[in-house]
């Protein structure tokens, strides 16, 4: 029987928070946008682009409120929760638009931001009183932490079984070898000591870190704080590891019982507050999926990503809202599944990329729709790093993208230095996404599918608009934005 992800106290807190929101909603409604994505999916870039585009009224032809001339402007506002750092929008933007543009560092801690939007409503009731104001709350966090959410409904025994089974899989054999031998030498029912717990936790953390560096099986490796511990480094709540259940009854002084207590403590101290404070009260959700990276890494990583997304998304509260239940129970009523980094392929392949991502999130999307939420999928790039072109070679037309690969990217044995501009043809995406999910290698119609997506440097020369603000190029970002918040700006 799966455990409930929250306690009764949490639920009361959530309901009270929603009531408080509902009380001020007639004056200034608040829209909570959940930007969900595993690490390196592009959350920080998405949020930075969103803020910048709204602040400067960027080039967003598909964003109805702006094109219809009803969007008056936006400004950064003080977030009511003073205990959490502010999203470092200025630094991220400076990194992207500075002298040597580079992508921002990967996120290591949680941060949030409130954006106040002002617009003229089309509805006559709201339109009568002049411009309307809407608060948009956004949270940025390390993607690794998201992997913890499924733990909320798993007991220690269930989680141990899953984790050990995964460590024994053939593709993680090399990384997990040291940890598995530690497990085999440890007797779960022996007397609990901190030394044993620390030894096991160290071996487990090492295994997690190595498999992440490998880049193949990054997605389904909770607990996320083992990789990014923050302040809790070395605390008992972070010193545990999966254990096979002991034979016979579990004594309360055994190692197994101790680790189980610590696992529960991890959930209570780390995971549950994270979920309660940031994910239990969302209105809209965008799920960013770095499909191309998983495709680069092969079918195992693709399958891994699929499981991880399905598990994570089942933690969110999705479904349709009605005005009365909304007072105490907010639900996510619109979900956008976005295949990010669509600028790494030519636009003629975007529909195939969307098809692959749809196949990836098929289970999650079906569940969400059943719950009553509306879903849509799109291939987007919040910041477009390449441009498109066509190359004729031996009578064959190749749709290529032109850009500067990041230093260290490799294709055909050539390593790039991050300065040379190239025209890349990344290979044809398969027409049927199922080809990418088959067990051993990427094949379509019996032939292997050859794909190689390089990571590119951010755009080096950016246009400026009449006010001197940088215009960030993008792909379908306007449409994504319109879907996510457009109906609140009517």
């Amino acid at each position, binding site marked *: 029987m799966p455990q409930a992800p929250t306690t009764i106290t949490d639920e009361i807190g959530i309901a009270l928070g929603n009531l408080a929101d509902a009380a001020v909603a007639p004056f200034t409604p608040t829209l909570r946008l959940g930007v969900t994505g595993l690490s390196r999916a592009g959350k920080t870039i998405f949020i930075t682009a969103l803020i910048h585009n709204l602040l400067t009224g960027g*080039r967003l*032809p598909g964003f109805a409120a702006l094109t*219809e001339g009803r969007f008056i402007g936006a400004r950064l506002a003080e977030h009511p929760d003073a205990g959490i750092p502010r999203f470092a929008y200025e630094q991220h933007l400076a990194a992207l638009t500075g002298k040597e543009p580079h992508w921002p560092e990967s996120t290591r801690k949680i941060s949030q931001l409130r954006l106040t939007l002002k617009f003229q409503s089309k509805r006559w009731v709201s339109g009568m009183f002049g411009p309307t104001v809407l608060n948009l709350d956004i949270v940025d966090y390390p993607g690794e932490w998201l992997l913890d959410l499924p733990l909320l409904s798993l007991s220690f025994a269930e989680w141990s079984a899953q984790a050990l089974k995964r460590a024994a899989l053939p593709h993680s054999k090399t990384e997990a070898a040291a940890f598995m031998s530690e497990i085999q030498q440890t007797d779960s029912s022996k007397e609990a000591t901190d030394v044993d717990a620390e030894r096991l936790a160290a071996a487990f953390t090492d295994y997690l870190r190595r498999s992440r560096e490998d880049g193949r099986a990054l997605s389904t490796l909770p607990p996320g704080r083992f990789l990014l511990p923050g302040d809790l480094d070395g605390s008992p709540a972070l010193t545990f590891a999966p254990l096979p259940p002991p034979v016979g009854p579990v004594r309360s002084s055994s190692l197994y019982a101790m680790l189980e207590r610590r696992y529960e403590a991890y959930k209570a101290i780390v995971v549950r507050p994270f979920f309660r404070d940031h994910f239990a009260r969302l209105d809209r959700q965008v799920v960013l999926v770095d499909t191309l990276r998983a495709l680069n890494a092969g079918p195992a990583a693709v399958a891994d990503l699929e499981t991880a997304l399905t598990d994570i998304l089942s933690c969110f509260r999705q479904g349709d809202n009605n005005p009365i239940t909304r007072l105490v129970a907010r639900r996510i009523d619109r979900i956008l599944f976005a295949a990010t980094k669509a600028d790494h392929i030519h636009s003629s392949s975007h529909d195939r990329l969307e098809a692959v991502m749809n196949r990836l999130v098929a289970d999650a999307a079906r569940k969400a729709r059943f719950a009553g939420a509306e879903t849509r999928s799109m291939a987007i790039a919040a910041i477009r790093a390449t441009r498109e072109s066509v190359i004729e*070679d031996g009578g064959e037309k190749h749709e290529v993208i*032109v850009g500067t690969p990041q230093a260290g990217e490799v294709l055909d044995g050539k390593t790039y230095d991050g300065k040379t501009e*190239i*025209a*890349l043809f*990344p290979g044809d995406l398969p027409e049927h996404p199922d080809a990418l999910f088959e067990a051993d290698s990427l094949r379509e119609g019996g032939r292997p599918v050859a794909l190689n997506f390089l990571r590119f440097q951010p755009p080096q020369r950016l246009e400026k608009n009449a006010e001197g603000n940088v215009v960030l190029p993008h792909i*379908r970002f306007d449409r994504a934005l319109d879907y996510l918040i457009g109906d609140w700006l009517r």
Partner: protein
Amino acid sequence: MKPPFARPVSSSGDAAEEPRRPRVFEPAQAVALPESIEPITDIEAPLDDAARPPRLLGWVGRVAWIAGGILVSLALGLAAERLIAELFAAQPWLGWVGLGVLAVLVIALLVIIVREVASLLRLRALDQLRHAAIAALASDRNKDGAAITRELLEIYARRPDVARPRDELESNARHVFDGAEHVRLGERLLMAPLDTRARALTAASARRVALVTAVSPRALIDIAFVIFESVRLGGDIARLYGARPGFIGTWRLIGAILAHLAVTGGLVLTDGVVEQLVGQGLAAKLSARLGEGVVNGLMTVRVGIAAMRVVRPLPFEVVKQPMVKDFIPELANVLNAEKK
């Protein structure tokens, strides 16, 4: 008895195509993106909503028309020839004058014909564009959408009043990747300002009709005025959206508007109820003539809306189509003015 056998069936077409491998090129090799936008004029017009009426005459009728046409042309030619010949017989200089006038007439007729044909083609282009836009909204293919944007820019290329939206559309369309988004952008930027003006034209026309009906002494006068205003309104709206209807074009347009009214008349039941209430109830209590005025005004509003739907080059997708009830406040103003 035949023995069992197995033979490979030629595999389907898509499997035959080898997936291409990733490759790197020099950026210098990249050619400028060719203009790959295909014109949409050769797109086949999709099926009409209504069934076509059966041809009454068929090929016999066509033969009759052609034969008749030839006869009339011959008669006209002969008459002209005789006239000129007689003029020459009377006085040579009179003959020359007659010949010159005839030449002027022929040239003027030619110009008129060319203009009529151009106007008909324009009407057809608008119609085709709308069908293509509907198709692009459904298919969401970038190529279809880009073609529509280009066509729109061409239609409004020589209109100073929409210069700014046109510029905006041109600069933004390059950053749009979906066909449907092209159509929506075009509608928001180019159509929305024109819609506002079409609405204003319709409202003004409806007010005039209501006023004339309310004060006219004879029913015949208001019928004539309603017809006159309707034709004028249809032409105005068509010109606003980029059609330049000539004589035949106007007839075509009126036919299309009437057909549209006939088709939608039964559908906008809710609007009809409003009309009934306003026309028969409230206004009629004030005065029978006023009630009739409002009803006639609403009729003109309908003509205006139908004209918009017929000539607007894009379907109503993101911009709300005006409804009859939106115009009632305007007409109520006329009533108030009347009462004073």
